């Protein structure tokens, strides 16, 4: 991390010129390594944040379902975490966890919790009472009922939560560039600092593409695991 964060620290010239076009295609071949590195870091940060978030949310949702009185405190806390401004959250952790991946991951994870907890709870609430009653009445037993009946029915909601959490996190990772762990966001910030538009365009363009791709991927995944929702009686 460099000392100066201000824009234009090493200005080439801010105007869009032939020397500094919005996108110079040769940059892809010259800087393949750093672009791939940024992309990989972006994916790593996104997936680990959502992965950790899912584990924590799963546990929180389980607690909320088991003990009804915890629903309020859990949604309240996760809602509070969700509204912490990202710049403030990343910044405020630096003194404690330094410029490390941890500093980036903690806020990213916290931002996923509300989305995931809400959707997991919605998913399990969507299981019709009659279906649970029938499962009990047939002697499926609690764990079998939860795993083979309730979870599959809740799955579209959970996957949709993952979808929202993931694309949101892709966007937030770019902001983590301000503490040096931004994946593609570093290309954006770097480009802004040097007023060098090619890396900015590549970083921004790829992060948008990544978000849209992951969005589509989860859409397909959601359809793939819920074949029963596609065919309806007409």
């Amino acid at each position, binding site marked *: *991390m460099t*000392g100066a*964060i*201000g*824009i*234009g620290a090493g*200005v080439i*010239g*801010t*105007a869009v010129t032939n020397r500094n076009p*919005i996108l110079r295609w040769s940059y892809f071949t010259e800087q393949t390594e750093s672009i791939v590195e940024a992309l990989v870091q972006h994916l790593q940060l996104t997936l680990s944040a959502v992965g950790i978030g899912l584990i924590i949310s799963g546990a929180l949702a389980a607690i909320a379902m088991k003990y009804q009185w915890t*629903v309020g405190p859990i*949604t309240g806390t996760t809602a509070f975490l*969700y*509204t*912490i*401004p*990202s*710049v*403030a*959250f990343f*910044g*405020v952790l*630096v*003194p404690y966890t330094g410029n490390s991946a941890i500093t980036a991951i903690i806020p990213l994870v916290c*931002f996923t919790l*509300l*989305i995931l907890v*809400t*959707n997991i709870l*919605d998913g399990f609430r*969507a299981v019709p009472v009659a*279906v649970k009653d029938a499962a009990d009445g047939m002697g499926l037993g609690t764990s079998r009922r939860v795993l083979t009946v309730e979870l599959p*029915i809740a799955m*579209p909601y959970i996957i*949709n939560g993952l*979808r*929202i959490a993931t*694309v*949101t996190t892709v*966007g*937030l990772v770019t902001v983590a560039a*301000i*503490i040096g762990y931004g994946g593609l*966001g570093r290309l*954006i910030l770097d480009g*802004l600092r040097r007023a060098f538009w090619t890396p*900015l*365009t590549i*970083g*921004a363009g790829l992060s*948008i593409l990544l978000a*849209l791709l*992951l969005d589509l991927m989860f*859409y397909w995944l959601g359809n793939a695991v*819920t074949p*029963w*929702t*596609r065919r*309806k009686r007409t």
Partner: protein
Amino acid sequence: MSAATVLAPLAQAAVPRDTGVFEFLLDGQRWTGSPGILGDLLDTVLLCAAVIALSIVLAVPLAAYLAHERKAQLASAWVVNIGRAIPTFAIAGLLVPVSLRGGYGFEPWPIFIALTLLTVPPMFLSTYVAVKQVSPGAVDAARAVGYTERDVLTKVELPLAMTVIFTGIRVASVQVVATEPIRAFLGGDGLGRYVRDGLGQRNQNLVIAGAILIALLAGGTGLLFTAIERLVKPVGVRRLGRPKRAGRLQSADPLGLAGEGTEGTAGSADRDPVVAAADRR
């Protein structure tokens, strides 16, 4: 445009590193000076207010109309989905060179447009859902006594949907305020500058002070909108208690983040195909 003009708003808030967080925040000079906290606050508030106002104008009437006509359900769902997928910082970054080429400078246009793109989809969505879920009985009754379609929308659907619409506006507005600080990293200032400068100068206290300011403004925005919500809530609705669906959106799902699952999910007969989801950055 010379480099100097571009760099002008970048004057850093140089603060001695041993200044304590509260020492900084409670120093009147810091507030009224130039650059000063009050000035930055005003910068941020004005930008956010403009974004919120424009977003309401763009999103609410259109969504209300389309929901009343039951039109563009699928298109709305997709627009909202894609809107959610676009990273605000990336969009703003992309717009910077475009803005420079057009001679509009580093800011505020890129951040303004990016924030508006962030805000319109959730406002559109909450309005759409709110109007659509108004009791069909009330709408039928209104038509039965001879209301025109316009009257049905403005005198029945909108008042009944107002609570939910305002919740959507509040949530989206808090998001705008919480996201605006990235402006400081896009060549602008505003309240985000203290975090930026603190990071740049490795001044932890300045970072924390900046973070506190941002968080307070975001929290304050939420409170302000909650107060407005209370004021505009129609008396009848207040007395009746919250409508069922609205209640769900407000309590179990305070930010309207619940997903729609896949369209037509099991047991989701009452669910809207439009994704109930707020955006972030």
